[in-house]
């Protein structure tokens, strides 16, 4: 077995990018993700890569677009306000069907917001953010090891579906340290890119674009995109499920709240309360089927988020109609400690939805 090293979440992610074959990083400083560009600025040149400290997040995402259009693996990372500035570029990437990995180590909002751990950008990542009818693939790591593994996965999914892939993590996941295996679990996949712009030598010219003006062209394009998103929903759901066999209440949470929930569930189980966990690892595609099936059986759901209620809407859509859904939200600046969550578990089991 490969040795595990005590590693910070952001560093595991940055090293994951390198191991995934990403050789192009463009970014602009913003807390709490600066470990990522700093690590890559030091280490990309050592493996023949390119690091550009871009003039803005707008430039960053467009540099990513240029490198990605060249068929190369490229990434940027930022936080809240910077991710907002990138939305134009992300929409173009989606529309032109270009892969890219965009990392959001979330900070609070709206506005400048504090740097405390938060999950306020769920809607932005999962339900658009940019203009137009598109979806990002969205991954939500829950451990330092997943910061590494899911970054590799993000590049593979982005290439496989020619689609922007976002990794969203709260600052806790970015900043804390755990033992981590810093080598890929399996060989990294590199799909062919018969669409990349590399100069037309010996072939017809290629074009990457998102402007469709002819009759029905745009509609046709968007319906094809929809087909792709349906395929992603069908094939790529990742979810962790724990202690569901006898569960009368299921906590649904991602990132740090899912970690806290695990501790709270252990505490609850010690008191004889039958509680389980569903942790979406992919936020799009969302584990809709899993939530439906298990909510039918358990009957009660408790969604825990570090915001005022974003993923809970997707849970409502997914859940069985007879399931009662409670919500416990701590927007950034406050924190859902294990005993807080335990108290919510008891409330939800006693009272049902609030």
């Amino acid at each position, binding site marked *: 077995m490969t040795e*595990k090293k*005590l590693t910070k979440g952001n560093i595991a992610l940055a090293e994951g990018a390198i191991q995934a074959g990403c050789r192009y990083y463009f970014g602009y400083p913003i807390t709490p993700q600066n470990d990522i560009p700093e690590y890559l600025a030091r280490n990309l040149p050592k493996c023949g890569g390119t690091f550009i400290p871009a003039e803005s997040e707008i430039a960053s995402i467009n540099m990513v677009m240029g490198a990605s259009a060249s068929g190369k693996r490229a990434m940027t990372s930022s936080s809240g306000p910077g991710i907002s500035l990138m939305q134009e570029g992300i929409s173009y990437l989606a529309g032109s069907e270009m892969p890219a990995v965009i990392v959001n180590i979330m900070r609070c909002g709206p506005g400048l917001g504090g740097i405390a751990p938060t999950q306020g950008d769920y809607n932005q990542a999962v339900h658009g953010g940019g203009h137009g009818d598109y979806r990002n693939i969205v991954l939500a790591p829950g451990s330092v090891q997943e910061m590494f593994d899911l970054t590799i996965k993000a590049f593979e999914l982005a290439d496989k579906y020619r689609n922007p892939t976002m990794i969203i993590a709260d600052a*806790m996941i970015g*900043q*804390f*340290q*755990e*033992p981590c295996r810093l080598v890929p679990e399996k060989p990294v996949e590199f799909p062919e890119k018969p669409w990349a712009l590399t100069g037309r030598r010996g072939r017809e010219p290629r074009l990457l674009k998102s402007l469709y003006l002819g009759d029905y062209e745009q509609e046709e394009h968007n319906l094809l995109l929809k087909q792709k998103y349906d395929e992603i929903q069908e094939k790529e759901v990742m979810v962790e499920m724990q202690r569901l066999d006898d569960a009368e209440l299921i906590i649904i949470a991602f990132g*740090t709240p899912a*970690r*806290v*929930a*695990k*501790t*709270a*569930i*252990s505490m609850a189980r010690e008191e004889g309360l039958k509680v389980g966990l569903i942790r979406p690892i992919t936020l799009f595609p969302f584990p809709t089927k899993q939530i439906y099936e298990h909510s039918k059986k358990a009957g009660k759901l408790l969604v825990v988020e570090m915001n005022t209620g974003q993923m809970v809407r997707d849970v409502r859509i997914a859940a069985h109609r007879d399931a009662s859904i409670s919500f416990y939200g701590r927007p950034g600046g406050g*924190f859902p*400690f*294990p*005993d807080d969550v335990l108290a919510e578990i008891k409330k939800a089991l006693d009272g049902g939805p609030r």
Partner: protein
Amino acid sequence: MYYDVIMAGFGGQGIQTISQIVALAAIRRGLNVTFLPSYGVEKRGGRTNVTLVIADEEIGSMVTNHPRCVIAMDTIAVDKYRDQVARKGLLIANTSLVPESMLDRNDITPLALKCNDEALALGSVKLSNMIALGAFLQKTKILGFDDVEAVMDEVTPERLKHTIPANLEAIRRGMEIAGNGTV
């Protein structure tokens, strides 16, 4: 086995170092570890707090508001974390800087430890963190002296390698004081 500890003080007191040592020693013992640092706004002279969770099972929360142990190296740390210590938990306070009157909880085990004075007696105030670490090892028994000794080389940067023997001596001294129940 499940143990959580918050180590807190001001920057430069070596909180990072002893928490790294404990984390690494636990990993070498095959235990799961989460290490959550939170720094003050300023890098030097700012606050340093580390939350460590050590367990032989999967670790859920990397955050705790009822730690089984708090190592508080100054008054601000005692003030902030004293009331959070879990009932029957352990509060190791650096009473070279903290008035003993602050350790006024009767449902926990307070350990008043004059870390700075003991460190000075060994030659350098910089050893105060190791005194605290020694006491922590002695009181909690989650790791032994050997576990810590085995990782000292790895956590010590090249330019400080020569301090390892003095550090180990300070850890032993901390264990000794805590073992004797001297306060």
